[in-house]
């Protein structure tokens, strides 16, 4: 150690504060012992404990200590950083220190809650973690902030109820809004329904009112039949490229008289009506659509030119070409909604094989007053296309006996394990519509597993359909048979409340199929650099406290794009996303904390590896007077650290996760662990804060026990991991090391997890080569909710450490120490 | 206070001790009972399978009392329930009322809806009041261990009885027993149905209910089980005799009517309240009140 460093070291004055958290920590950890231990560690000037450190008196204790003892570093030991790290950073700020001179030790989720049976071990573990924190905080550096000007305009993608609401809220507040929809009109799936629960009003009427408002607010620009193709820029200053598909009708000229539509001689299956009705080659989807401008389907069109001839406004233009629109916006709201899964795969129900097995969305089309039969359900086996009349003809009796099957594809491990949330309600709605409007004597069986009618007014809605005489059977049907002659269907189901299998005869079987994210959601997410979850829906930043935020600053989500939602919820989210966008853009500038990547110009050799690693294009190699050097765009950098982990010279670093800081923490933990845990195996884990660390928090909340000799270090993304971290850990005496990352496809930073996997695979070979053994290192995918898996992995790795025994390095050192 | 005394079918036939003690107690408390001369069955057994018949029968009795201009008091949970229910129904449903009055016309009667029907403990509790009863108590029963059984139909459905008592855990009878200073115990099966209504429909169920209660009570060694309903009383008293002869199970839990207990506290002798007529003799009590 040089003189300079020594001096610097002496100048470091650390305060340590241990929280009791009532009995949550103090109940199974001897806090006094921890405080005594911390007091003896070098550079610790003061160590104290408090019943509730996060309370006003607790925070004051820290603040006063900083002043009284002239502290320049603080380590606080309490709950997990995602709860109160920010609290204590603020305390430091208030006391005049840079907030990043703080380190958080997790003594609740990682010790007291998971080792509650063994007070001694829990206390020991906290001591080890504290030693790591104190060693680390010595190397902390101040991190600053910067201010950015932002554009007061917002792009809203998707014109369903959520998107429309967001656009209206923003437009009315004076923000420029671009409302883009892929379809030739707005309205989303809502416009396809006859009624909407729980008030049974007509969606077209509700939408009609909203469309009217949209026309009134001049700040809103509606762009239909268009898709987002490209995104660049950063929060507050996004540049978006949108491709507008040719409609072959001039939107400026068209007066919406629909003469062209009525004269077109062509008929093809209508996608809007799920193929149950036909439409012309130049068409509109529904009479009240907005904008009321037809679109020509060039594939169906026979180029007869009749439409051109009859158009009074001369609006039809067969030569239209795709058009690219470029927009500059401060924020983006994604409200791309859902689509219904076509359950061909659930073969036992015969969808696609038996004509009279349909989905609920298809039934919704039948029940729609504007639909093919104006609200009268029919058996598809009775339907025929009449060429002369050029329309659908129904021959035969209307259906009398219906069987509705809930949870088709949903809540099923073979297909989608999530609950589609609104199927119970729309099944009930359709039963109600049939019994009230179509045929009060219809026999309707609802085969359900659990009726989920939980929102305001929903239980009452459910009660109404019971009163109307729907027959409610608890059981998931096993199979459906069709009588090939009569086309009658026989549904076999165990009525679980009767406890015996029954067979129900039906004219029409309706499947409440799973709600899936709209087609193209993944592609759009990739363009916008936001993430999708395992279920394919867009991922919110936090399911509870960040439901409309995403990992990318300035991009928000609303409605069913992030998971099945009903209309009230979608509308609420539309407003919520609008409010989030306003709070971001309202002041005209934003403050960004620069806990991002940084390049040490001296060490950088300009190799450009970091450039290939960055998923955001935020780090680029430039020609400078010193040669080729990498440079970080701090506004675009999201702070995942993938670049730092892959830099061959250690020039690139992620602030607050710099090599010396990580090394110090590793060293601190392992030195103390060797001393306290002696001959027991020592396992070190690096956990991504998005998933594995969150799972460790959940394990704490659920009091899932695992061996105490697993020490967890929090990293922003598994992609932050550097082979150097791993080697350092083994050098300092870890017996087994593992990394916990997000499942492939769900990394918050696109693919940091896969980068980590590659590095770990390489490191394993390296360990094999140097005689430590590759099986001492692993990487696991531990999604945030899988606390059980977290505990299992921890147990397994300790078992492995026991089996493999101490590493040659640890053994050698032990021998050395004895000598 | 003057009340129409509705005895029902069972009491005159089987339980003179109940009638005797009730009359004595009311007399002492200054209540004048006017016997309903031409009363018929309250209709309770019919309510389960023939709604119209039940309503007509109950209405007949109600109209009879109405003619005398008196509120009805009954000694039986079933009668109280049936009559009060019919009374409430006819007061609210004009269509049913018309139908019934059509029928009553033949007998020169009419249902107008001017009277009330009460079980006698409700009269004691609401109209006479605990304070007034206390004034009449001369002997404390503190040396006796008693258990109460309120029964079902006097408390459920609660709306028929104007929510007189807690329908799940009734307490009013206990309060009435407690003023005698008797040692009123709490026991596990206190609110269990006596099972009498299942007699004839499913005897096994009925006996099982009885057995559960008796098994529980025999652990407590009570001096008497206090009932306020002829059906409950008979189920427990005759039922125990049945258990003894058919199943060789002996519990020996004496069963008494509430007015018998109250009568003793008011200074009457065991004989005066008809305790000698009880089949399973509450020996300790009889001994003390010779």
């Amino acid at each position: 150690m040089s003189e300079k460093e020594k001096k610097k070291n002496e100048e470091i004055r650390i305060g340590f504060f241990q929280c009791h958290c009532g009995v949550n920590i103090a109940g199974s950890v001897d806090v006094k012992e921890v405080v005594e231990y911390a007091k003896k560690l070098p550079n610790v000037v003061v160590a104290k404990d408090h019943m509730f450190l996060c309370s006003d008196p607790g925070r004051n204790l820290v603040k006063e200590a900083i002043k009284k003892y002239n502290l320049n570093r603080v380590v606080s030991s309490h709950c997990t950083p995602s709860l109160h790290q920010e609290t204590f950073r603020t305390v430091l700020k208030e006391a005049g220190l840079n907030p990043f001179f703080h380190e958080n030790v997790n003594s609740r989720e990682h010790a007291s809650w998971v080792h509650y049976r063994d007070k001694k071990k829990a206390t020991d573990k906290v001591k080890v973690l504290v030693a790591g924190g104190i060693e680390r905080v010595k190397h902390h550096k101040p991190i600053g902030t910067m201010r950015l000007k932002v554009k007061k305009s917002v792009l809203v993608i998707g014109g369903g109820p959520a998107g429309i609401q967001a656009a209206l809220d923003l437009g009315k507040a004076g923000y420029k809004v671009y409302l883009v929809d892929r379809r030739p009109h707005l309205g989303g799936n809502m416009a396809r329904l006859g009624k909407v629960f729980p008030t049974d009003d007509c969606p077209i009427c509700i939408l009609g009112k909203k469309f009217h408002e949209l026309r009134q607010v001049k700040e809103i620009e509606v762009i239909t039949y268009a898709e987002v193709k490209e995104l660049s820029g950063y929060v507050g200053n996004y540049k978006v490229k949108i491709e507008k598909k040719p409609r072959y009708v001039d939107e400026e000229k068209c007066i919406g008289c629909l003469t062209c539509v009525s004269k077109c001689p062509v008929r093809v299956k209508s996608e809007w009506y799920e193929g149950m009705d036909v439409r012309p080659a130049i068409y509109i989807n529904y009479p009240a659509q907005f904008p009321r401008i037809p679109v020509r389907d060039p594939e169906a069109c026979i180029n007869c030119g009749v439409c051109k001839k009859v158009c009074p406004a001369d609006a039809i233009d067969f030569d239209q070409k795709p058009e690219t629109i470029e927009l500059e916006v401060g924020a983006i709201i994604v409200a791309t909604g859902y689509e219904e899964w076509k359950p061909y795969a659930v073969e036992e129900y015969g969808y696609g094989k038996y004509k009279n097995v349909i989905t609920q969305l298809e039934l919704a089309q039948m029940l729609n007053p504007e639909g093919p039969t104006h609200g009268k359900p029919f058996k598809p086996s009775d339907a025929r296309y009449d060429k002369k009349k050029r329309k659908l003809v129904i021959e035969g009796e209307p259906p009398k006996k219906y069987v509705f099957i809930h949870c088709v594809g949903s809540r099923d491990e073979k297909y989608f394990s999530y609950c589609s949330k609104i199927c119970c309600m729309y099944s009930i709605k359709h039963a109600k519509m049939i019994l009230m409007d179509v045929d009060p004597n219809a026999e309707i069986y609802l085969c359900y597993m659990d009726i989920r009618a939980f929102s305001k007014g929903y239980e009452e809605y459910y009660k109404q359909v019971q009163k109307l005489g729907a027959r409610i059977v608890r059981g998931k049907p096993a199979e459906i048979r069709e009588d090939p002659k009569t086309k009658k269907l026989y549904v076999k189901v165990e009525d679980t409340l009767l406890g015996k299998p029954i067979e129900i005869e039906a004219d029409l079987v309706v499947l409440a199929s799973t709600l899936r994210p709209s087609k193209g959601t993944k592609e759009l997410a990739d363009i916008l650099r936001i993430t999708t979850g395992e279920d394919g829906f867009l991922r919110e930043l936090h399911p509870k406290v960040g439901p409309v935020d995403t990992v990318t600053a300035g991009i928000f989500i609303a409605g069913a794009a992030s998971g099945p939602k009903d209309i009230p919820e979608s509308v609420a989210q539309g407003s919520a996303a609008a409010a989030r966008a306003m709070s971001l853009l309202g002041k005209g500038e934003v403050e960004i904390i620069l806990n991002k990547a940084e390049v040490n110009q001296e060490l950088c050799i300009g190799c450009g590896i970091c450039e290939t690693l960055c998923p955001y294009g935020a780090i680029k190699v430039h020609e400078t007077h010193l040669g080729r050097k990498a440079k970080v765009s701090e506004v675009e950098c999201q702070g995942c650290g993938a670049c730092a982990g892959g830099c061959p010279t250690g020039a690139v670093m992620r602030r607050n996760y710099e090599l010396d800081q990580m090394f110090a923490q590793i060293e601190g933990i392992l030195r103390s662990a060797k001393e306290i845990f002696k001959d027991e195996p020592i396992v070190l884990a690096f956990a991504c804060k998005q998933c594995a660390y969150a799972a460790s928090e959940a394990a704490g909340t659920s009091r899932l026990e695992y061996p105490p000799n697993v020490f967890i270090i929090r990293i922003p993304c598994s992609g932050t991991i550097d082979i150097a971290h791993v080697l350092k850990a083994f050098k300092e005496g870890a017996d087994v090391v593992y990394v916990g990352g997000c499942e492939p496809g769900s990394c918050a930073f696109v693919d940091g997890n896969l980068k980590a996997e590659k590095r770990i695979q390489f490191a394993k070979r390296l360990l094999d080569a140097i005689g430590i053994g590759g099986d001492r290192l692993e990487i696991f995918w531990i999604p945030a909710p899988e606390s059980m898996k977290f505990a299992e992995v921890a147990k397994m790795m300790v078992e492995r450490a026991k089996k493999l025994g101490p590493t040659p390095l640890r053994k050698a050192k032990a021998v050395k120490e004895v000598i | 206070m003057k009340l129409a005394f509705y005895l029902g079918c069972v009491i005159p036939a089987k339980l003179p001790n109940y009638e005797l003690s009730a009359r004595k107690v009311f007399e002492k408390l200054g209540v004048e009972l006017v016997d309903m001369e031409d009363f018929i069955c309250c209709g309770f057994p019919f309510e389960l399978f023939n709604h119209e018949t039940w309503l007509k029968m109950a209405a007949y009795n109600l109209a009879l009392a109405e003619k005398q201009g008196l509120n009805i008091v009954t000694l039986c949970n079933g009668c109280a329930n049936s009559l009060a229910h019919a009374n409430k129904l006819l007061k609210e449903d004009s269509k049913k009322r018309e139908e019934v009055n059509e029928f009553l016309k033949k007998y020169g009667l009419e249902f107008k809806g001017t009277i009330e029907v009460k079980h006698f403990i409700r009269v004691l509790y609401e109209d006479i009041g605990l304070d007034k009863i206390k004034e009449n108590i001369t002997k404390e029963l503190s040396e006796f261990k008693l258990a109460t059984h309120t029964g079902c139909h006097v408390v459920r459905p609660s709306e028929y009885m104007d929510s007189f008592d807690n329908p799940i855990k009734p307490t009013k009878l206990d309060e009435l027993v407690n003023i005698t200073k008797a040692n009123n115990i709490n026991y596990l099966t206190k609110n269990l149905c006596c099972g009498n209504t299942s007699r004839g429909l499913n005897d096994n169920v009925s006996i099982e209910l009885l057995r559960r209660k008796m098994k529980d009570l025999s652990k407590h060694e009570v001096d008497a089980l206090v009932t306020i309903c002829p059906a409950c009383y008979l189920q427990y008293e005759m039922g125990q005799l049945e258990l003894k002869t058919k199943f060789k199970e002996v519990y020996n839990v004496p069963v008494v009517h509430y007015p018998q207990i109250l009568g003793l506290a008011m200074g009457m002798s065991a004989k005066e309240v008809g305790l000698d007529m009880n089949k399973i003799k509450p020996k300790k009590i009889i001994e003390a009140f010779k």
Partner: protein
Amino acid sequence: MIAEEVSKISGENPFACFQCGDCTGSCPVSFAMDYGPRRMIHLIQLNLEEEVLKANTHWLCASCYNCTYRCPRNISFTRISYALRNISVKRGIYPNKTTKIFYEIFLDHMLKYGRFNEGIFVREFVAKGGKGLKELLRDINLGLKLWKKGKIPKDVDKIDKLDQIKKIYEACVKEEKEDKQ
């Protein structure tokens, strides 16, 4: 605990079941069962061992895997059935004499020949009383037909390395004992 025992043998998790009844509806023999697969799993969840082992359900399972194929929670009642039979056999519980005889002969063949000999089986099965007199009389005709068609083999089919089978069997039995300790 029966649930634990079942899990251990079959590798299935009965607690994942949410009682939808798809299994019972799919089962071709549920009509003859005391409890359908769904209720059986519920009994296992509640650890009602006596009730579970008394039922005929697992003995009637024809191992068609229909329930397994359709289960939305990825539970195989077929494998749970096998586990329940394992447990029953260990406790000496059989649904009827026929099954007991059938199983014992099968295992015997396994250890004696390494293969199942249908020809000898029929003889042994009848000799041990596996068939009632009535069925026997009815089947005589069928037996004759089979014999005429040369479908009842006379030769014993036996493998060479029988000791391997025995060693495998012993290893399994040994593990079982160790597990218990």
